[in-house]
């Protein structure tokens, strides 16, 4: 078990920014942390790094107190919106952090791996936002961390860089790291993480596998159909389909009814040109679970 959070509370002034939160992240597991702005994602991460004191509860990183020498040795962190001193080059920044971590990682290979390459010899002041983010990621890869804490790591990355980033996260997890990622880009977390944790106002609302969440939420999925004109009436009347455009219709159905509906539809035969099944979006799930918490 790489990260154990037990009933953790963090207070800032009078408000409790984290209350009674419990969470486990095993090694090799990728956990997505989502929640509204100010939900307490960054707070949870900083508390796990020992940068914020706990008002109650406890946190263990690889069996040690957060912030202890052992915990810091086996943790890697990417802060949100990180930017390094503009007068230093990327390679100089990495070399310094490498010495702090006591690793002999090849800096130029690391720069190539995150896609900075040549830019590593330029000053950070000349970097774009995405390039600074990549430098932050390179710093995470200096060692093989038992626990990687990544705060909005993909903000500012282009789609290809984002894909590469999740590739690197997969490698980390495959090598046995526990990975905790916070993000607002819900759709991209969908396929890339093992578990979803939703925070709301400092409280944990949901902590489960995506499929389980889907099933529990029982949100309607959509079937998108294009069919020839002869069966348009059947579709609208019998299946109460919604006409989207000339040839295209949309039917919403419960996950439990899906198979029955599909067999009925396929019995329509040739008149049916095409069909797409659209599961509920993570955005919808997120909305569903945060709303549930209000009630």
């Amino acid at each position, binding site marked *: 078990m790489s990260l154990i959070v037990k009933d953790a509370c963090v207070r800032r002034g009078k408000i409790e920014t984290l209350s009674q939160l419990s969470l486990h992240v095993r090694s090799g597991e990728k956990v997505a942390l989502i929640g509204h702005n100010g939900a307490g994602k960054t707070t949870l991460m*900083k508390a796990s*790094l020992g*940068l*914020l004191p706990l008002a109650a509860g406890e946190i263990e990183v690889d069996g040690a107190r957060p912030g202890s*020498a052992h915990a*810091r*040795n086996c*943790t890697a*962190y*990417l*802060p*949100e*919106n*990180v*930017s*390094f*001193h503009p*007068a*230093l080059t990327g390679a*100089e*920044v990495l*070399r*310094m*952090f490498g*010495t*702090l*971590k*006591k690793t002999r990682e090849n800096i130029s290979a690391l720069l190539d791996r995150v896609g900075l390459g040549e830019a590593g010899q330029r000053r950070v002041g000349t970097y774009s936002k995405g390039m600074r983010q990549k430098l*932050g990621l390179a*710093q995470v890869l200096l060692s093989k961390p038992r626990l990687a804490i990544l705060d909005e790591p993909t903000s500012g990355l282009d789609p290809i860089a984002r894909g590469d980033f999740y590739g690197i996260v997969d490698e980390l997890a495959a090598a046995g790291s526990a990975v905790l990622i916070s993000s607002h880009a819900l759709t991209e977390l969908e396929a890339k993480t093992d578990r979803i944790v939703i925070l709301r106002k400092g409280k944990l609302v949901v902590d489960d596998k995506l499929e389980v969440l889907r099933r529990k939420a029982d949100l309607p999925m959509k079937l998108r159909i294009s069919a020839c004109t002869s069966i348009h009436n059947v579709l609208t009347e019998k299946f109460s389909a919604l006409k989207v455009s000339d040839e295209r219709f949309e039917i919403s159905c419960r996950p439990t009814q899906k198979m029955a509906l599909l067999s009925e539809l396929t019995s329509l035969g040739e008149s049916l040109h095409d069909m797409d099944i659209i599961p509920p979006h993570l955005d919808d799930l997120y909305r569903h679970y945060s709303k549930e918490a209000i009630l």
Partner: protein
Amino acid sequence: MNSILAIAACEFRISRRNNLLRATVAMMVLFAVSLTVLGSGATGALGVDMLTAASASLATLSVYIVPLIALLLSFDAIAGEVDRGTLALVLSYPAPRTSLVIGKLLAHLLALGVALVLGYGAAIAVCLALGTVSTASLLLVLKLTIGGLLLGAAFLGLGYALSAWAKGAGAAAGYAIGIWLVFVVLYDVALLAGLVLSGADGAFTQDFFPWLLIANPADAFRLVTLPTGQAAELASGFVSADLARSYAPMVSLLAWPLAALGLAAFAMRRVEP
């Protein structure tokens, strides 16, 4: 140890690439040269060599510019890292918190040393070209350099403390200007006002003024580094020459860096990344 050196190396690079700092050091060199040339007229009258004559002006110049350089180097040191989000990152690394401050201190002292060597070196070069340099005067400049480093260390410590305490680099810059004004300008003005109000025989002039003068690191630096005889002259009879020549200014100049760095370490422990 390696961590401290790695931090210091990066920090020294940052100082070297700091344009504001370069401009300040260039200004210092320029002033050192012109003060030396202007002061050379008095050489014959006083019967001393040119560098000795210049050292008094160099000391006065340093009182203003060394604290300025130290604060320029240090005001951004912690607040800037908080703003960039790198303080949280550095503190999540295995090196202890204090190594961050020590690394920065080493780099900044080195940068300050380079600035002092450039400034005083220019003055020595001018004296070698135009007049005479005695061994005694070289020792005087060495004393200025060491005193300047101590004075600088005191203001570096104050700079780190205010940088950790301020919310943001902008606020830290403001506080730095304030500290410079108070210690280097306003303090002496206030003392002068006290002297005028209390008169030559007043209790303030007799009992408090000498100690207040020594308590300010900038004034202590002046007392320590001015050539003997001139120290008493500076005090213009208000401070007994005994006190000015005693160990008290030296103790003050040594105690200030320690106290200021202690303050910085304390502020650093409380800073929230």
